[in-house]
Structures are given as C-alpha cells and as structure tokens.
C-alpha cells in the first residue's frame, strides 16, 4: 500500500576508543632473579598487524615492565612511566626501587579511573633486599606482589599450568622430601618457553616470536647459566650491580 512507508529505527553511532591487540605476557620470580616474557605478535581480530611488536620494556637496571591489552595505551603508558622514573632520578639521584615503581604505577592507572588505560601490566625485577619480585596490575591499578603471573589472551591456558609447576598445586612431595621454595633459573626459562609454545598451539593470537627478559640480582650466580644459552644479549653495561639480559626465541607463525 502506498501509504505505508518503512521507517528505520534510529541507530546510535559511536567511536570505540579501545581495541584488543592480543598477545600474552608472563612473569616468574626466583630467589635472586626475575623473568618477564611476552610474545611479539600484535593482532586485531583475525589479522596480524605485525609479527614483531615488543610488549616487554626495560625501565631500570632492576625493573622490567610488560604491558598487554590495547597496544596504543600500553606503549603510551610505558613512555609515561619512563618519564616519571627520569624525573625521580633527577630529584633523588638514584633509581626508583621496584616496590615504589609498583605503587607509582597504581597511582598512574587509578588517575585514569574513568577512562582507563586498557592494559594489564606485569612489573618484574629485583627488590631492595635482592629477592626476585613480580607485581601484577589490573587496568585501574589494583596490584599485588606474587611469585608468578600470566596475563593476556592465553592467561586461562598458562596460569593453571604455572600453578601446577611453580606453586606445585595439587601435588604432594615424595615422603621425606619437600618442594623447593624457589626454582633455578634454567628450570624457570624452560617453563616459560613451554608455556608459550603450548599457548601458541592452542590460541590463535599467540605466536611469531618470544622475548624473555631476565633481571638478575647483584652477586647472583644465576647469571653464569645464562651465558651458555643460545642468543643471549646483555642490556646492562657493567658486571657489578643488577644485570638485565634478553633471550629471543621463535614461535610458530600460523
């Protein structure tokens, strides 16, 4: 009938400021070292934007920050944290200790409580007392020090594996023995690599490459084992003091 015309319902249009760039990060604290790793794939939906986009960044000789979620916010957040660390260095003539960096990150994130940085941060490094530390954050600044944490697309795949292998959950030690409180560096590195290869198998947003940062405490013997590893690069200039190393590995590209 000519009188009836179809009238469409109004559709509200809007700009979505966030997007998910995939990827996964992981950090494990040892007795006198800390390992912070992340894959290098950056994706959006089914598309791979790049096979090499670093997600793990060195802040100081003692602290490494991994950021995962919305890459634009992640990269900007790292720049802002680095700027605050530089101001601190000028004001106090020393590097910020890692637990202070952790608290700083909380305040920076909560300041944007009503338009958050869409990032899951994991801060790893060496505490003032020389022990390995891992701090994990949510997008608005809730944080906690832990022995290990996985975040990102494959968190649900990796975290339960780590619960079993790092915390020995659901395992009872052989009678007369007990599980070690801390694992040696070589074991931790193997666990990190296995976690990422497993995640790459079963999650499409994980793959291409793996970058592992190792922060070693002053006077630690763990560093010796590292030199024998293939493709290790030292980022710190001197032998005395804390040391930061990078290990890169390939991951499946499919």
């Amino acid at each position: 009938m000519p009188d009836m015309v179809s009238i469409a319902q109004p559709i509200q249009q809007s700009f979505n400021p966030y997007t998910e760039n995939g990827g996964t990060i992981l950090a494990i604290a040892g007795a006198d070292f800390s390992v912070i790793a992340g894959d290098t794939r950056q994706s959006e939906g089914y598309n791979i934007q790049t096979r090499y986009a670093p997600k793990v960044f060195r802040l100081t000789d003692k602290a490494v920050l991994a950021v995962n979620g919305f890459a634009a916010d992640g990269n900007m957040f790292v720049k802002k944290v680095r700027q605050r660390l530089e101001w601190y260095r000028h004001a106090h003539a020393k590097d910020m200790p890692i637990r202070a960096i952790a608290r700083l990150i909380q305040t920076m994130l909560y300041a944007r409580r009503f338009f958050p940085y869409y990032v899951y941060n994991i801060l790893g490094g060496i505490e003032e007392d020389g022990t390995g530390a891992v701090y994990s954050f949510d997008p608005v600044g809730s944080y906690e020090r832990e022995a290990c944490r996985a975040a990102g697309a494959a968190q649900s795949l990796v975290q339960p594996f780590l619960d079993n292998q790092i915390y020995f959950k659901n395992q009872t030690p052989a009678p007369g023995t007990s599980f070690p409180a801390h694992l040696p560096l070589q074991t931790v590195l193997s666990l990190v690599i296995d976690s990422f290869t497993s995640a790459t198998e079963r999650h499409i947003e994980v793959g291409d490459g793996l970058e592992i940062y190792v922060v070693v405490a002053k006077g630690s013997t763990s560093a010796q084992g590292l030199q024998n590893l293939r493709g290790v690069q030292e980022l710190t200039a001197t032998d005395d003091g804390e040391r930061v190393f990078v290990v890169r590995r390939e991951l499946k590209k499919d």
Partner: protein
Amino acid sequence: MSIMELNGGSVIAMVGKDCVAIAADMRLGNQALGISSKFERIFPVTDRIYLGLPGLATDVATLRERFRFRVNMYTIKEEREIQPETFAHLVSSTLYEHRFGPYFIEPVMAGISKTPSGAVKPFIAATDLIGCLNFAKDFVVAGTASTKLYGVAEGLWEPDLEPEDLFETISQTLLNATDRDAFSGWGCIVHIITKDKVVTRTLKGRMD
C-alpha cells in the same frame, strides 16, 4: 549468561600407549550456587567405550538415555558391540538431527577399538553441540574449564604414556584446570581404559 554455563562441569580425554583416559569433575550447580558434588557425567557405552557429557545437566541425562536406546538397538540387530568410530558417528548424527534446536552438550568419547588384525588402537573424539566431529590424536577437552584444560594439557601431555603415567597426567591436568574455574570442580573422577580392564578412581582435590 550462556546456557552451557548454567550447570558447569568439564570433561577431558587423553591418548596413551595402548590405553585411553577420560576424566571429569563432579560439580552440578545453578550458576554460582553449588547443588551436588556427586554428579556423574561420564557413562560406559560398552565395556571399552566411555562417553563424557559436559553442559546442560538435563540434556546430560536425556542424551545418555537416547544413546542407550540407539546402542541397544545396534547391538541387538548387529549381534556385536558397537565400535568407537561408529559410535562417534552415531553421536554426531544424533546431535545434528537437532541442528536448529540443539542439545546443550559437547560430548567427549574415549575407547579402545580393535583393528582387523586383533591389535589395540586407542581412540578419542569430541563433537561440538551440533555434531561436528574432532578426532584428535593427543587429547580433547570440553566444558566451562575448556581453555584452562587446553593450556595445562598442552604443557603436560606427551605421546606414548603408560597407563599409570597417563593417570597422573590427566589427573593433574583436570585438577589444576578446574581449580581456576569457578563452575568446575567439587570432586574429580578418572577412568583409565586398557584392553583388559577399566580402572576408575576419584581424586582428592579442592572442594571449593
């Protein structure tokens, strides 16, 4: 909230050396409220085929009875026990019959089939809720903790595990994965199926 997550529950099956294992949690809930810690969701179809049914609990019971009907008819007419591969296709076609009004279940099967030469071949399979078959060679997972199960299984599984080692591997996979899932847990049951026997064990785990 997804219908598949209303009652909770997860199942996993793994292949070993001349053996298979199938395991599941025992929680039945109504969203966040836990109702039963004794809900069985793995059933024997024949001596050597076991079927796990994670998903909506009412469909677990219904499908179990429907498959019993169809397998009974098969056994009586064929005068022999149904083979695992054939049963998997029976599961697939039964689910596809309800393509546009499906059962909210993602079945997982484990069994031992016999080759013509008399050798033993371990078998696992899974389908989605409308019957798409997946014949994996290593492991299959389903349920609310499926992503967690994938992660731990991928890390712990290796080929050619003996029955005792397969038991340890599948148990650790199930326990650690369900501990990270609010809707799965409250008890775990594991069946290890070999050519000669089936050993069933319940695991001691977190009851929270």
